[in-house]
């Protein structure tokens, strides 16, 4: 079962992927059974705005509904849209927490997409990030399905260091963290040591072409700690396959990385390779 962890859908100044027109072909070309999707990090909205129907968590949910069983949608929330918690504060509401509730319970999405560099918050910020994950943990118990937190973990700022991600993943042991890009080339020397041993964290090899950075983790923990995505629409299937081939020592290992691990962790029903396709095409 092929589960691809990383496809940005929607329309922003940098991305144009109208799922209604392109997703079916994308799944077919990539041999993908289940695709994880989320909004463009740079232009996300909570609710779909009138000026751009291809943004917002509602849009992600509508695509998930259209491709029932083939798409796992992740929500994006604005981490800074929360109350100030000190005594005497004049702002009490937290739209970010309300949106998590709406996205998971009402819209049926499967977790959060977070980009600590794009949205400028430390992934282990106790005031901003942890309340979101506390709420996500509560909501997970309510809906009874395992939720994911897909983190842009390129190691490209202090905000998304392997240490920060590992610390937060350890604190929220009920959630499943996908460490997207596995810290890229910047995580050399730390990612294998500090992040790979966290049980509820998968190293996501999306666009991570430098095997040396996480090879130590692969040797120590084996293929069970890994998953992969294309990083579409800009990434390619060819690159994804090459990255997996760099790690997997046989077909079984490749299948685990390409989807088996995530299917296990999320307890997804197995999809036969011939199963098709859109529920409401």
């Amino acid at each position: 079962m092929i589960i691809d962890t990383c496809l940005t859908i929607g329309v922003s100044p940098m991305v144009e992927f109208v799922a209604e027109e392109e997703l079916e072909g994308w799944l077919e070309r990539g041999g993908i059974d289940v695709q994880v999707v989320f909004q463009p990090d740079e232009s996300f909205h909570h609710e779909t705005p009138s000026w751009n129907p291809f943004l917002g968590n509602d849009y992600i949910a509508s695509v998930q509904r259209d491709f029932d069983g083939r798409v796992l949608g992740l929500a994006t929330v604005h981490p800074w849209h929360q109350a100030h918690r000190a005594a005497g504060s004049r702002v009490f509401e937290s739209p970010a927490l309300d949106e998590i509730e709406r996205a998971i319970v009402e819209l049926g999405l499967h977790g959060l997409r977070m980009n600590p560099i794009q949205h400028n918050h430390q992934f282990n910020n106790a005031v901003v990030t942890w309340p979101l994950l506390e709420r996500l943990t509560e909501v997970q118990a309510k809906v009874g399905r395992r939720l994911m937190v897909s983190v842009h973990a390129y190691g490209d700022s202090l905000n998304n260091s392997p240490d920060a991600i590992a610390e937060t993943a350890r604190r929220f042991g009920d959630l499943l963290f996908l460490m997207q890009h596995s810290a890229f080339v910047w995580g050399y020397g730390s990612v294998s040591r500090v992040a790979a041993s966290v049980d509820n964290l998968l190293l996501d090899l999306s666009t991570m072409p430098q095997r040396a950075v996480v090879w130590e983790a692969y040797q120590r923990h084996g293929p069970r700690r890994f998953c992969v995505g294309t990083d579409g629409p800009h990434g390619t299937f060819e690159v994804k396959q090459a990255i997996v081939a760099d790690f997997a020592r046989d077909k079984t290992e490749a299948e685990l990385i390409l989807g088996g691990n995530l299917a296990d962790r999320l307890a997804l029903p197995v999809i036969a390779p011939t199963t098709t396709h859109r529920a409401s095409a």
Partner: protein
Amino acid sequence: MSWPVVDSHFHLGVNPLVHVTVDDLWRWMDTGGVDVQMVFQVNEGFVHRTPDWNPYIGNDFIASVQREAPERVIGLGRVNPWHQPPPAAVRRSLRVRALSANPVMDELDRIVGELGLWGLKMHPLETHYQFNNPRIIFPVMERLTALQAEFDRKLVIFIHAAGDTLNNSPEAVADTARRFPELLFIASHCGYKWAVPTVAHTMAAEPNVMLDLTTAAAPGMLRELYEVHGPEKFCSGSDGPFATNRCKDAIVRSLIGDDKQAEALVRGGNLARHFGIGGA
């Protein structure tokens, strides 16, 4: 000539990190000896329109503070440059080609035309864009240039330019400033210590870039720049509420020494001249 003290840099409003109300601002100015304060929204969580859930963010909030004391406050707007559709030339889908609205352009019109603000605060690190990104930043500058002419008001682009990402490099600031020579760009933090070696031949070399000494706490690194360009190139801010006026004044004095006339220009004269206020 005596000039008002114009402080370039104050964050106003409420988010999980900051809690600063209008009353706090007046106290800040009175105790810090600030005649005119440039203010803008909190960087984290800023929005275009003030929402019901938080009346202390949004450009409407900043405009309301400016209206309360227009002789003491210069308000800057914020826009999220990513809230634009893709440029028409690169759109593929017919449905995407049909997108007609651009909330960023609408908000720029509102900021300058309706709310009476004096330009933009931009933070390429926090909002994560290259300051010379032609898809999203150049259209903003084009519109501001047009608005400046239409409303005959000197605007400023106030940039977090601490050299702390690729997004706000001195080269990127210089590139954009060169392309939009009618706008005044204020490079806040002067590249800090990360970019100082390249500031001189990049953004400082552009005549429409002013170097803002806010929290440039190692002024010895800026001495060469000061000797080349003189006091007219500089302004100063406190970075309140995070830093103090005491630090601001120490930075200015450390760089300038005992030249009172130069100090008056850096502490407010240069900005006052640009905005057409004070000076006697």
